[in-house]
């Protein structure tokens, strides 16, 4: 049964003299190869050179602090309930007297874990957060060989207090979100 009109009938015809010495064909092939030396390279030398990332790129999460260095997260659980992959778990604790400089509200997350193997980086946690605490950043989650290393706790998620340790979330945070 004929399926297309592109089929070619194989002919066993004698090769000509030029074809028999192969050299013109080899030269033709080499010309194509050499011409690629002078074309623009499609690859880059990662990690020395990085491609530009979209401002809304969804990479590794960060738990933000406010201007005074207090954690924004109050363990309200909305990110966890919004998460379609059920990657987020948390345990809440009550802020004690004297911890006012650490946590913004009277409740805070004593444990906050994201399973990066489960996470699908959809950004729904960021959308659900009423406290501007969780954001997805342009950082890429590091590879690993142990499954345990992909469960990110507060040590990896919360940004540092010092100005140079803050994680910039660019256009994501700020004025357009009212709270």
């Amino acid at each position, binding site marked *: 049964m004929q399926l297309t009109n592109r089929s070619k009938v194989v002919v066993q015809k004698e090769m000509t003299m030029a074809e028999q010495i192969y050299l013109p064909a080899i030269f033709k092939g080499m010309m194509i190869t050499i011409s690629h030396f002078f074309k623009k390279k499609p690859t880059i030398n990662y990690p020395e050179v990085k491609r530009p990332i979209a401002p809304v790129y969804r990479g590794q999460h960060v738990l933000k602090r406010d201007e005074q260095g207090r954690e924004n997260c109050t363990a309200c*659980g909305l990110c966890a309930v919004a998460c379609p992959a059920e990657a987020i778990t948390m345990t809440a604790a*009550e802020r004690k007297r004297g911890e006012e400089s650490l946590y913004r509200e009277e*409740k805070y997350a004593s444990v906050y874990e994201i399973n990066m193997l489960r996470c699908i980086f959809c950004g729904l946690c960021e959308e659900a957060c009423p406290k501007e605490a969780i954001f997805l950043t342009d950082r890429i989650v590091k590879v690993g060989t142990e499954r345990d290393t992909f469960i990110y706790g507060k040590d990896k998620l919360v940004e540092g207090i010092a100005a140079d340790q803050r994680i910039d979330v660019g256009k994501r945070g700020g004025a357009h979100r009212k709270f």
Partner: protein
Amino acid sequence: MPKVTIDGFSIDVPEGTTILQASRILATEGKMPDAHVPPAMCYYTKLKTSGGYCRTCIVKVSKGSEKDPRPMPKPVPSCRQTVMDGMEVQNLTAPDLLEARAGVVEFLLINHPLDCPICDQAGECHLQDLSYENGNAGTRYEFARRTFDMIDIGDKIKLHMNRCILCYRCVKTAEQITDGRVHGVISRGDHAEISTYIEQAIDNDFSGNVIDVCPVGALTDRTFRFKSRVWFTKPMDAHRKCDKCCGKTAVWLSGNDVLRVTARKDKFGEVEDWICNECRYDKKQIGDWTIEGPRKIERHSVISQNHYESLRQLKVDISNQKKLLEVAHVADIKQN
């Protein structure tokens, strides 16, 4: 028996029934969708003299009665207004009434801190539901909200006076369910606050019920404080032999841990039976309880999130709603 029509749904009720009770009977009997029942923040069936404070249950009476068909000049609180024969009431069908109710909600929220992400009541809070369904998205209030310090009432109850809407339910509970009342409202007007006399501990066997009657997160269980969010817990009907109360409760589980014990609440948010403090606070082992099965949670509730067993119920709910809508449609045609 007087006949009353609420949003086009008619029912004959005994003399002296209030409009709110009549609409709840209609909804319980499945003759009217639940949404047409006026919301109530302060009225509580099991508490005498409750109701009349919050004004969220206002309805429009478009026809006073058969004898005097004039409409009532102003919205009336349905928890206090008794029905008259031939009365016609509008709730969801009157846009001006819904606007008035949005105004009531705005007033209730004037001093409310809206700290739902912190509050343990979030997810089962009547004020949250009320403002979501009947309120406006924003507030026009620009001044400082009144603030109070948190108070521990005994070692089991936490009082967040900031969140209180002064519905007086807990006061009436303390008055009518427990003996030797040590809990009431002090000061007046904007300064009014729920208080025990000089923070005196409540140690009555039934004092824990003030947590269940509180429509907001003002009175919360300290044994459950910040343990979990309600939508991560699994509510189960359970019972045990108790010589003080009926022993029929709802336990809120996380795995096999009993995080919280509350009374069972009906679809209007009222407890079916009071429970004692021993059941509520001290029986936190799964072995203390005989589990009857999962509680039925309305599918609109955040508590039913990620509970996939409710999908079967969803089908039943949708078919019921469809039937009711057809009834409503017929009623509309008859009216016009």
